[in-house]
């Protein structure tokens, strides 16, 4: 971590986005994580993505559970409300917040302990309900704050810092997300900003449950020889299926890649994801094929990254519930309270 606070003044020519904000307007407090922590790169990628999308910072709500990853919302989007909740229970708190006001953007940040161990149930149910959110797991396979115990995503046979091998099967959050009906599923690597930033932008513009599993090496406890979540291991075994080049809200974007190399995916809100294909046969809209592809490549020891699945016709929980367009938290007595006359009628029917 650094103890040097950034000066509040910034370069007068710092670029601004469509709202007139600079990147500094999307930053948060100084990180207290270890120097070189993958999580800080993810925070930077979130700042970058929100800046480039010109999202009003205060219209984003950032929520987390407990752990190193869950601390990070303090370190980005300082003008957004944040909620550092209970270990493993961010998904339910986020779900409630989303129910209260459908107009905000909900960003849930969690870790592999928070989501795959103590919070596996809530992780699963938030995805299967179709809560409109971006759910990022900063996945390092290890418990950092309690100093190096394996988490539930640690691969079988992976070694901890003392050389002891993990004997439990890992939980594959991507596989679960696909099974449970998440409508935007991606995996990335904190060391690959070029891949990660567009994936976050795609998730932020997606309507429905968007899940990003981001491998984020723990420099203190899981970056050694024998780890399958170290910088070196992930770089060597990264098998990207595509790169997401950009997201545009307008349909008149033209294709400038050779046919077969580029896939354009139009999302619910009209935004277009432009994907450069790296694995020729991969179809991001085919959920079943994605599951097979991932299972096959996992067996070969590869870490498949990129946009893995996106549903073109995605809806969200408010759509399923038929909730009014006006946020529930903005309704007053005239919309909520049936009044005395209705009560008198009800009394009469109860006699």
């Amino acid at each position, binding site marked *: 971590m650094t103890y040097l606070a950034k000066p509040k003044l910034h370069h007068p020519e710092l670029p601004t986005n469509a709202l007139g904000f600079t990147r500094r307007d999307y930053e948060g407090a100084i990180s207290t994580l270890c120097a070189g922590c993958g999580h800080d790169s993810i925070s930077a990628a979130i700042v970058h993505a929100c800046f480039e999308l010109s999202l009003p910072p205060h219209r984003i709500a950032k929520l987390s559970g407990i752990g190193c990853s869950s601390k990070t919302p303090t370190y980005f989007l300082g*003008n957004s*409300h*944040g909620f550092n909740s*209970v270990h493993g229970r961010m998904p339910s708190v986020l779900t*409630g917040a989303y129910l*209260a006001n459908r107009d905000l953007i909900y960003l849930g940040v969690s870790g592999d302990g928070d989501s795959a161990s103590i919070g596996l149930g809530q992780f699963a149910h938030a995805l299967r309900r179709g809560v409109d959110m971006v759910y990022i797991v900063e996945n390092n396979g290890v418990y950092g704050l309690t100093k190096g115990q394996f988490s539930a995503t640690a691969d079988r046979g992976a070694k901890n810092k003392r050389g002891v091998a993990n004997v439990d099967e890992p939980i594959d959050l991507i596989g679960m997300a696909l099974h449970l009906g998440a409508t935007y599923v991606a995996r990335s690597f904190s060391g690959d900003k070029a891949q990660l930033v567009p994936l976050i932008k795609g998730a932020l513009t997606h309507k429905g449950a968007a899940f990003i599993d981001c491998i984020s090496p723990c420099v203190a406890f899981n970056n050694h020889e024998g780890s399958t979540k170290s910088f070196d291991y992930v770089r060597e075994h990264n098998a990207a299926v595509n790169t997401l080049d950009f997201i545009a809200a307008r349909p008149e974007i033209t294709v400038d890649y050779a046919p077969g190399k580029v896939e354009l995916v139009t999302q619910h809100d009209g935004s277009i994801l432009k994907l450069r294909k790296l694995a020729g046969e991969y179809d991001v809209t085919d959920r079943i094929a994605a599951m097979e592809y991932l299972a096959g490549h996992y067996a070969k020891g590869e870490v498949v990254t990129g946009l893995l699945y996106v549903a073109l016709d995605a809806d969200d929980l408010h759509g399923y519930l038929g909730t009014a367009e006006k946020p529930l938290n903005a309704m007053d007595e005239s919309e909520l309270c049936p009044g*005395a006359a209705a*009560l008198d009628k009800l009394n009469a029917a109860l006699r």
Partner: protein
Amino acid sequence: MSKLQAVNDFVVKFANVNGSGSASANTLFARAIIRMGVPATPRNIFPSNIQGLPTWYEVRVSAAGHLGARGGTDLMVAMNPQTWDQDVKSIVPGGYLFYDSTKPLPPSKFRGDITVLGVPLTEICNARYSDARQRQLFKNVIYVGALSALLDIDAKVIEQLLSEQFHAKEKLIAPNLEAFQLGRDWALQHLSCPIGLRIERADAVGDRVLIDGNSAAGLGAVYGGATVCAWYPITPSTSLAEAFSRYCARFRVDRETRKRRAAIVQAEDELASIGMVIGAAWNGARAFTATSGPGVSLMQEFLGLAYFAEIPAVIFDVQRAGPSTGMPTRTQQCDLTSAAYASHGDTKHVLLFPADAHECFEMGAQAFDLADRLQTPVFVMLDLDIGMNDRLTEPFHWNDAKRMDRGKVMNAADLAAGREFGRYLDVDSDGITYRTYPGTHPTRGSFFTRGTSRDEYARYTEDGPAYRRNMERLLKKWETAKRYVPAPVRRDAAGPTRLGAIYYGSTAAAMDEAAGQLADQGVAIDLLRVRALPFNDDVMDFIARHDSVFVVEQNRDGQLRMLLINEGDIDPRKLRRVLHYDGTPITARFITGAIVEVAQELKIVPMRQPVPAAE
């Protein structure tokens, strides 16, 4: 043998098999009596089972309007062979036994000191119906017909109720009327009608309505402006969330767009339920969950967060007998301590104690104002007895001029005007601080909510003095809460006395009746019905002004007594336990018996000076 003689004052108990369709026939019976202007109080006594186990439906008819359970059965409608022996045994001497006499039973199955009323229900039924399901359902209506003749219930009232009940399915009216008439005619022709127990038209019901507390609380949540309900099914609270859902379908659906002005989510468990409630309330919606004891156990960690981070939440706890799974379908008041001090660390939570369906509605709405005003969880403590049973209660009232109290919330204009905002900064010295909803202002008013310690501006800190300042401010807020929660209801004895009794919640009905019995037996006692935690000064004043105070409640350990001792620094010897906790509703007889026994031991001498009434 003297036969029991009573007009409008007796107990009828139906012994049925769960799942046999008896519930609607039994309800029809109770409603008919009420329609004749006679107060009647039905109670379901049912097992944790879907089909096959014994279930009872007790109707206490009371001209005097006593709504508590009485104990004992004057007329047993014995429809369940499984429980025959215990049912026959439970009839009071001189009472009546109504049974299906199709199959002869040996004399040893009866008692000499009761009147036996045999009606060949199966025979009547089989002669008329061939379909098995019809035989089962109409048998229930046939016994209501026979009972109407035996008890002199007006046939026209039942005919009216049947036509109201089936107004949407009109073709069911005639067959039900026919079955009713079959039973009634058979009894009129073959038995001496009426028996010693009779219903006579009266005017003792007034404008009261018949409803269960869970429905009333769900309705209260609609009126209170709740928009988010997250819940997990658990007996006996399920029907509360379902009632909210039903009333939302009626009152919260836009006529044109068909869009809903409420979001109801059946969560995966109670942890997620309370998590959603906290998330929604943090984001400015009025949110609640409905649960029972095991659910409150699961919610402990989140409740600590809501207390410490100061997030409103409303929890309807419909209590059942614990610990553990306990007796899921039996009533108790046994979650007081686990709710009052829910979570690790130093916590205190606001509890409300509705006594009946009317208060379930009132407090069901008020709880949301309190939660917003105090920015903390508020529990509404129902129990199975008032939650799941239909009960006569004062009609619901609403003042259309009333506005929701959203508490201290800074809006965009406040922030734009430069008002200082510190999420945990106590600017009014009442312990309650200002909050902002997420998304209010582009550059001002955002803060980080956390379960870790923080300073007045919501910045993380482990500084000891800052932690203490915060914890002490929470105590100040607890003091402030005393001004907002419902005050106790006091009812003094006719003359001065040094004896007092404190009670709450569903015990009220039995206590009201016991008050009369105690007066009749010469025991002068002042009563105080506590309606909320924190206890306000009136409660402590009441205890101070009496030498001995009975604390009447429905749990083993005297949980309200513990709270009184703990919160009010009361000498434990002063508070005498009157505890009923076998899972059945407490009765006036039990309360009177327990208090009279002690009063005699104490040899209470009336005071010379009257006790001044509380302000």
